[in-house]
């Protein structure tokens, strides 16, 4: 089975500024998985992603990516950061943002024709090719998120890692965004982190629940225990389809 393991985490402990954030995390992600990690804000979701990317040093435990260390193989991951409030006046075009994804692979001072072709292909994949010459600040939250996906894809990753990809995107964009991910998941492994259970559970193929410790059975069943573990709140709330964290989608930011 080793060939198919793209991420393997063993007994991972991470603390930030002395506070334990992740405890005894064990997780294996197989090739082709579309894993949604849910959990409350502050439950350690971003820290888990940051550990996988090598941005956070674990206290204990092991992470391997495609059989190699994080230092060696973290470039196999395409990373889509949490909706960052970029400086809207930053003078850069969509196409140049996407090209940035290839900067580390670039040889010499200029992008090659292949880099440009790859940029065009990825913009097409996320259906943003028509906006390629627009300044990034002119885009809506949803459009920008797609551009960030293209920037992650442009370096040919085998895994796509997304941190709260729809946190500040309006609900219309959310649905089409998840459809995009569903399409991408046919050809690559996707791990995404969110506190939005309803949105996630419609599209992902497996769900894990993270609140300092991780519950994961490599299936999509969202058990009562998982939710209670993850959210520490009465289950009725969720049974009605309105998980408490979902209520305030940040509509105001987009636009």
């Amino acid at each position, binding site marked *: 089975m080793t060939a198919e393991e793209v991420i393997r985490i063993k007994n991972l402990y991470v603390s930030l500024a002395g506070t334990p954030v992740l405890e005894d995390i064990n997780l294996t992600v197989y090739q082709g998985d579309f894993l949604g990690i849910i959990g409350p804000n502050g439950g350690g979701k971003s820290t888990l992603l940051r550990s996988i990317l090598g941005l956070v040093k674990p206290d204990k435990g092991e992470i391997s990516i495609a059989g190699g260390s994080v230092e060696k193989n973290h470039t196999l991951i395409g990373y889509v950061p949490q909706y960052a409030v970029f400086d809207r006046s930053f003078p*850069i075009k969509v196409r140049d943002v996407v090209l*940035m994804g290839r900067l580390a692979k670039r040889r010499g001072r200029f992008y090659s024709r292949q880099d440009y072709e790859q940029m065009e292909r990825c913009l097409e994949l996320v259906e943003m090719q028509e906006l390629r010459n627009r300044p990034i600040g002119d885009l809506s939250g949803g459009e920008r998120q797609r551009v960030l996906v293209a920037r992650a894809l442009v370096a040919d990753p085998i895994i796509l890692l997304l941190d709260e990809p729809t946190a500040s995107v309006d609900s219309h964009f959310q649905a089409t965004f998840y459809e995009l991910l569903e399409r991408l998941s046919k050809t690559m492994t996707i791990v995404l982190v969110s506190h939005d259970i309803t949105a996630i559970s419609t599209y992902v193929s497996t769900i894990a629940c993270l609140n300092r410790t991780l519950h994961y059975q490599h299936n999509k069943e969202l058990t009562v225990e998982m939710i209670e573990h993850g959210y520490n709140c009465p289950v009725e709330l969720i049974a009605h389809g309105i998980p408490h964290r979902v209520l305030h989608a940040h509509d105001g930011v987009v636009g």
Partner: protein
Amino acid sequence: MEFLQYEFIRNALMVGFLVSIACGVVGTYVVIKRIAFISGSISHTAYGGIGLGYYLGINPMVGATFFTLFSALAMGEVSHRMKDREDTVIGIMWAIGMALGVIFVKLSPGYTADLMSYLFGSILTVPHNELILVLILDIIILLTVGLFHDQFTMVAFDEEFAQVIGISTRFYNGLLLCLIALTVVVMIRAVGIILVIALLTIPPSIAGQYTRSMGSMMGLSILLGAVFTTGGLYLSYLFDLPSGATIILLAGTGFLLSLLLKNITGKIAQEKRWDM
């Protein structure tokens, strides 16, 4: 124009132009990366280098070059390692750099009367060898930017992502701070240590309002810088005012006007949208 018949004026215009190039290019990074504070801090530590130059009996500008480069690297390390207290530590280094300068000057033998020209600039008295120094620094700055523009832009735009794909943010941040240090040295003679930060940030922040790419932002910044230094020089000649301060006040006026203009055109555009 009788203004142009003096050699020292032509010299000064030349310095102004060279300064505008460095400012426009490097200032653009300073503005988009929002590192005006650290840049101001680097410029003030230059005083330590000028003091050191006096003390050692070498050209103060050479002292300033090495001292500001050293401070820039030290500040780069600080901002890399102490994310939580970055601004405090940078502020402390700013003060220490200046204090060192004051002590060095006090300990220096002989006459140090032209100190004021380093603090507030004296573009009219730039000796020929310093004009050459400024030219060389300009070339170094342009070459470095030419080589690493994409990396600088990426680190400014999204530092975390740069790190993720394997770009050394520490290296490029440090290198950019070194460029800022060299730019500061270039500017000291024109507007002086204390006023450097204004000329470094005003042209790019005006340019940023009217341009949509880094290249055009830099180009317009250079042009604006040239207008401000030349115009400031002319006004200071006309009204017999200190040149550095006049250049800065002219730039400041330009900045206010552009804000005003932006505000008005913004309102008009908004009204148009309402009408539709």
